[in-house]
């Protein structure tokens, strides 16, 4: 490895960091005295441009080796996840334009870009140290983003909670990694898996299980799986809408890409793989049940989305618990998480528009949305029905694809029972999604004034809704695009 190789291999991350610097320079130097909205537009523009260039860089960046060990991989899961991260980041940046919550939009965009760079690293990393570095870069940026509405106490509280839980989870993860290193004397994923299998043959099963549980704690926190989910409702509620959308989408994509890498590295049917599968299955079942049941009782739409996010994480973990490295399962999971991320960003866009017009995000404030802003109500209808898994929207297809992949792996009654549980709880989830839609479409409006959303937000939301509908009617295009990375 020389610096030239390093530069080329990390070109996407480098592009994002350069864009972050550029945004800071432009924002604090050139347009410092302009109005906040103008500054937000400029910052978002540079951020989106950075993402676009990084997207191009992803397509040309080679894999990175250190000696004979692979540090960063390309294509396959990494490729899909990196493209998804960049696309979703760009969209959340666009939401910033009409949602000025800070006097320093440049700083916000810069931190978002750094977080995305962390996400890109995680998605491609094949080495424990690189994984941990990427995770910390992502996490620390997210803590800052959650606290970005400096005048809001809720924002500060949410960030502190997120930070405290996150710090602890990172400690668990690092502890688990240290065991793995102790067992295998290597930090490279394939080497680690090899060392772990040797160790479990030599009677080290208990140690391996402890290490895997530690790692599951650390990553369970990142994807908000029960029982490591406590930060999610508060963070979703308190963080500024674009930051919450980012946490709910991009950070999830990166974390699940990492989980896919681990699942792909593990040898199926082996002792370690079986414990890993069991751990994930337990997390999945707990998340599906708890997330859906808790969401039933929510009156704040943001918290409702947070609990539903926990439930969705449960569905995806189910896909990881019964995993085959053939690529079919990885593609189904990536399809799910990408479309879920897109839908959630849209949902936060709608919530933030309603919030700004009516004061807060309680379900009652959505009353009569179809009269106060018909387009916004229609977008909400499409997005929430998609989250509930109603055809012909993309959420249904994603679920079908994921569950079919789980059943295809086979393995008897357990996966089947869990899929049945997941499908049953999707029916439960319809109830709380319908509560919000009922408020928007059935209830009489509290006031006759229009709810306005900025033109960029409206455009983004309409495009997202059309994409959700389009990908639902013609799921093959997105699926082929994802499969293209695995050729």
């Amino acid at each position, binding site marked *: 490895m020389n610096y030239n190789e390093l530069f080329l291999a990390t070109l996407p991350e480098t592009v994002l960091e350069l864009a972050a610097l550029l945004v800071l320079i432009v924002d604090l130097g050139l347009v410092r005295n302009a109005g906040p909205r103008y500054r937000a537009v400029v910052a978002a523009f540079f951020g989106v441009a950075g993402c676009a260039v990084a997207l191009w860089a992803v397509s040309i960046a080679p894999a990175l080796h250190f000696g004979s060990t692979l540090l960063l991989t390309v294509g396959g899961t990494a490729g899909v996840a990196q493209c998804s991260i960049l696309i979703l980041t760009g969209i959340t940046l666009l939401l910033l334009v009409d949602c000025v919550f800070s006097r320093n939009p440049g700083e916000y965009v810069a931190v978002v870009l750094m977080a995305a760079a962390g996400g890109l690293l995680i998605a491609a990393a094949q080495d424990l140290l690189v994984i941990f570095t990427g995770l910390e870069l992502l996490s620390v940026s997210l803590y800052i983003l959650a606290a970005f509405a400096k005048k809001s106490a809720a924002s500060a509280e949410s960030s502190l909670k997120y930070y405290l839980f996150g710090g602890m989870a990172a400690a668990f993860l690092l502890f688990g990694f240290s065991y793995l290193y102790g067992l295998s004397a290597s930090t490279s994923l394939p080497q680690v898996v090899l060392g772990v299998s040797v160790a479990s043959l030599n009677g080290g099963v208990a140690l391996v299980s402890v290490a895997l549980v530690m790692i599951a704690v650390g990553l369970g926190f990142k994807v908000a799986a029960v029982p490591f989910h406590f930060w999610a409702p508060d963070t979703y509620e308190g963080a500024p809408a674009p930051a919450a959308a980012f946490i709910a989408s991009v950070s999830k994509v990166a974390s699940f890409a990492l989980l896919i890498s681990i699942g792909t590295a593990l040898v199926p049917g082996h002792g370690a793989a079986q414990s890993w599968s069991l751990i994930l299955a337990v997390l999945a079942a707990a998340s599906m049940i708890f997330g859906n049941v808790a969401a039933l009782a929510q009156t704040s739409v943001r918290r409702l989305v947070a609990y539903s996010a926990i439930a969705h994480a449960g569905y995806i973990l189910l896909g990881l618990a019964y995993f085959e490295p053939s690529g079919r399962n990885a593609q189904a999971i990536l399809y799910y998480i990408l479309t879920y991320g897109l839908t959630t960003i849209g949902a936060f866009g709608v919530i933030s528009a309603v919030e700004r017009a009516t004061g807060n995000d309680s379900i009652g404030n959505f009353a009569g949305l179809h009269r106060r802003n018909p387009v916004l109500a229609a977008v909400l209808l499409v997005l929430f029905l998609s989250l509930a898994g109603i055809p012909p929207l993309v959420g249904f297809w994603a679920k079908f694809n994921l569950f079919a992949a789980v059943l295809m792996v086979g393995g008897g009654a357990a996966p*089947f029972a869990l899929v049945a549980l997941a499908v049953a709880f999707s029916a439960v989830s*319809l109830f709380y999604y319908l509560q919000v839609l009922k408020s928007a479409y059935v209830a009489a409006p509290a006031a006759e004034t229009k709810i306005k959303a900025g033109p960029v937000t409206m455009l983004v939301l309409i495009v997202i809704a059309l994409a959700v509908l389009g990908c639902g009617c013609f799921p093959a295009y997105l699926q082929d695009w994802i499969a293209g990375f695995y050729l």
Partner: protein
Amino acid sequence: MLAWTIYLSFAGALLETLLPKGKPGLARALALLVAVAGLVVAVAGYAAGFSQGRITVTDVPWIPSMGIRYILAADGISRVLVLLTGLASVAGVLFSWNIDKRTNQFFAFYLALIGGVFGVFLSYDLFLLFVFYEIAIVPKYFIIAIWGSTRREYGAMKLALYSFVGSAMVLIGLLASYATAGAHSTGLVDLAHAGLSTSFQMWCFPLVFIGFGILAGLWPFHTWAPTGHVAAPTAASMLLAGVVMKLGAYGCLRVAMGLYPHGLDPWGFSLLGLGSWRDVFAVLAIIGIIYGALVALAQTDFKFVIGYSSVSHMGFVLLGLMTLNQIGMTGAVLQMFSHGVIAGLLFAIVGRIVYERTHTRQFADLEKMHLSRRLPFAAWAFVIAGVASMGLPGFSGFVAELQVLVGSWRAAPGWTVAAGIGIVIGVAYTWRALQKAFFNDKLPTAEDHPKTGWHDMAAITWPEATGVTLLVAATLAVGVYPRLLLDQIEPAVKTFLAGGVQ
């Protein structure tokens, strides 16, 4: 050609959402135009289908990597139900003529629902069928919750949740069949050929049958039906009873019985006299027939009578399916058509023509109004509909229920006796409703008829008269000349019995 019924309806729904607000007349005209166009296509497709078996309308790859294809095809059973949907949708639009609130949204949901229903009846791929099935559920919720009456939000949510629990069961069955069959296709024909093991079919059959049966009003999962029917606006009640319940029955027939025929095999042991899933569901169907009729007999709300009568009549459909013989299953399909038309007519008279003018559905109030004198059109329309509903000769219900009874006699004579009791109670509750609502024994006295108190009831409007005429003509035509439908149903049932959907 039949595929255009689907596309026309969805295009109509889209156009309705784009119409300017505050132009209800335009929205109505567009909806009627779309519904009539759908009916014309359905009739033409039906006429073109005589002496033909299954016609494949469209067959293109949809999601190649999963082996899912976009297959639309129609055999005699599908064509009859498409025809029914066409009729019901035109009648529904006519009886929704009085909707002034958010008219374009109403018809947008309405046409989306109709499009989904057409889609289910024409799908020959299980995945596609499921997609259309779910598309038909969501609009129902909004139609009832926004435009409904009595406890509308409760009724709407109950209906939506029951439907989704049912469809979740179907989805589990779909996923399991797809994975078990080797995951190369979700086409109904391919899955039927996949050689699913008997033990698999044994548990998948009841799962899917109940899943669809919930929507068909299968006792004891029928409780959404009366509350949903009562809460719904008239057109939605007509569609719910007329075609949506048929979706469930059609799913039971096409999917549950077509894909898992061995699920009906004997268990090899007997429990409480029941030796197979066939016995279980036949008994549930009979309980539904008698229970629905008895409960209808005790109602004080006119619309609840019709709501429970639907449960009773749908019991005949399910019983007919469980006979597993030519005549019984032919009767079941004919009963789907017949009940669709007659229930639509009954709901239209009760929910629209009478309620719109009296603003009550309670028999206690209706009894004092002497409606046979003041609303003779409604009274005589109800007499015709009631007589058809009782199953008197000359109407479609007679042919259908007779065939079901003959079929069930051949399967198990005990079933026929029990179902016969249901028919007798059916006569009783229809008679009671007729008498209480329209033909009170007492003649109006001078006190009943104060010079100022009785305001004139609004005249019957042309959409009402047209709608009633359309539906009465349909039930009479089939009753007098049943070969009109039987010529298409019989060969299709014969093929079905010969080898599933193969």
